[in-house]
């Protein structure tokens, strides 16, 4: 079983020289569970450390790379289709997250898997966007009444879509943070600073890519793919280091009210990647406060993969704490209590009647 320190060193910092065959097997299983096997192998290859991978582990790594290449091909086709669709409807859009990395061909896009595509449109274009998607056979994913209300009223305002033939899921955003939160992000600036990528599709500037990924990672209840997102951020920061505008990045965090999240990001990068993110315009006040340290403790554990191959990694208390704090960043307190009440009731039903109570019966 690997220690947390061994995972940080080998998985994040690519210190793999001393891993034995058993540890490689465990590391591979952790990576595959987190959909990071392909991107990790390509990072090793770029670092000239591919030869440390034992021969028996190479085929599954290469299989993961092949699978990721297939997904990238599919994403590129979708970028082209979306570009044609929205151009025809005169709707301006910017790809976000994984699809944006593919559109921009950023170094972290190679081998990176994603579960859906994310796009951002202007608020005024929301109804036109839905119309365009429905005309192109996209369908709203099946949701229960509560989840539909959650999306319509409190989140993106449009529920996720799925294409019945391509099998692709699409999340439509008009903001990078829920409108019911007490923070707001200047989306107009996102569009102004967007750049043109594959198939003429727009993607956020690299500072925006880092900013959005960090918000999604830290001011969010779901850190399931946290290590993948933190790796994205690290690769964007280091591989664009020559041209990256660190001051602009700090201003984005500052102006949107995410100063604490910026400081947490700094600590996470230091902890996992031994990387010192320049502070830009943000000072180091508050680093010693109890609240900051509680949040860091929680998010640090939430990001660490919970795995039977990592000693002591399950840590339910900090993960739960991070879950609640993440939700509280996104919702007013009354709504949060109502939402958590609903989620708790659902969890209780699952606990009493089984994990699969809400899963449809297999045919």
């Amino acid at each position: 079983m690997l220690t947390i320190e061994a995972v940080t060193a080998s998985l994040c910092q690519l210190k793999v020289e001393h891993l034995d065959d058993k540890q490689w097997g465990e590391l591979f299983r952790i990576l595959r569970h987190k959909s990071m096997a392909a991107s990790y192998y390509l990072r090793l290859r770029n670092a000239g450390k591919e030869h440390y991978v034992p021969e028996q582990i190479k085929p599954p790594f290469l299989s993961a790379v092949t699978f990721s290449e297939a997904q990238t091909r599919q994403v590129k086709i979708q970028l082209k289709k979306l570009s044609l669709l929205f151009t025809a409807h005169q709707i301006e859009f910017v790809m976000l997250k994984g699809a944006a990395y593919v559109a921009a061909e950023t170094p972290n896009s190679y081998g990176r898997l994603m579960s859906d595509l994310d796009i951002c449109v202007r608020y005024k274009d929301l109804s036109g966007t839905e119309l365009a998607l429905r005309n192109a056979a996209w369908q709203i994913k099946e949701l229960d009444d509560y989840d539909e209300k959650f999306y319509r009223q409190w989140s993106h305002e449009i529920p996720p879509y799925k294409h019945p033939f391509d099998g692709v899921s699409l999340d439509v955003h008009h903001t990078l943070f829920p409108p019911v939160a007490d923070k707001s992000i200047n989306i107009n600036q996102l569009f102004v600073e967007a750049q043109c990528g594959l198939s003429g599709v727009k993607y956020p500037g690299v500072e925006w890519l880092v900013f959005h990924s960090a918000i999604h990672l830290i001011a969010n209840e779901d850190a399931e793919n946290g290590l993948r997102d933190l790796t994205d951020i690290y690769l964007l920061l280091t591989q664009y280091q020559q041209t990256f505008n660190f001051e602009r990045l700090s201003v984005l965090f500052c102006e949107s009210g995410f100063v604490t999240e910026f400081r947490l990001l700094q600590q996470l990068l230091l902890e996992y990647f031994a990387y010192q993110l320049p502070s830009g315009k943000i000072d180091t006040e508050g680093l010693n406060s109890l609240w900051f340290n509680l949040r860091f403790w929680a998010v640090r554990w939430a990001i660490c993969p919970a795995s039977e191959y990592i000693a002591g990694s399950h840590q339910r208390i900090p993960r739960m704490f991070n879950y609640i704090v993440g939700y509280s960043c996104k919702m007013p307190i009354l709504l949060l209590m109502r939402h958590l009440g609903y989620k708790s009731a659902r969890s209780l039903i699952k606990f009493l009647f089984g994990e699969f109570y809400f899963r449809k019966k297999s045919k």
Partner: protein
Amino acid sequence: MVNVEGQLPFNPIAPAKILPSIEWSLNWCVAAYEHQKLIFHSSVVAKNGQAILLPAVSGSGKTTLATYLGAHGWEMFSDELAIIDLNSNLVNPVFRPASLKNESIDIIRKSCPSVTFSDVTTATHKGDIAHAKLYTQKQFRTFNKCPVQAVVFPKYVALSNTRVMTLSQAEGFASLTRQGFNYNVLGSEGFNTLAAVATSCRFYYVEYSDLADMSELLSEVLADQC
């Protein structure tokens, strides 16, 4: 409950009925994780270093046919998965029992007395399931990967006479792509491998009800007499 590296691919099931779920999970692992080889939903049998693929959808009788053949002079490479090496285009033998369903269990019990059976797992979502072991590990090790000589799409039709139709290589190629587990994942490598297999073998569609008759027919196919 079957847990594969944190994923739960199947609904939970009573411990007494776990064996079929383990087998399906093994198939799931191959389909989800193995992308260094081209994989089809197909039985595979071989004789004299030449293989025949028997691709078909569930319920077409391919497992029954492959198990019968495996107990009657053929090498059963697999009842479920054709695993083909990229570049060399050779098909691999897979050491695993055949998964028989419902009436097939008794058909094989009666026609293949040398086969060892597991207990029958009743009332799964696919019906009753029993696993049939044809070979010891020592016997299996004598099997070698080999080229595909023919592809036969079998269809069991009760009480029918054996009826053979020849398919063009283009028809065969197109039909095989529909049975691919990872054909779309492999991209150009998958296309090139399948194209090489398709251009070097013959394709047939066969309706049958008599297993012994099918064994003779397939021998003729291998001998290029069909």
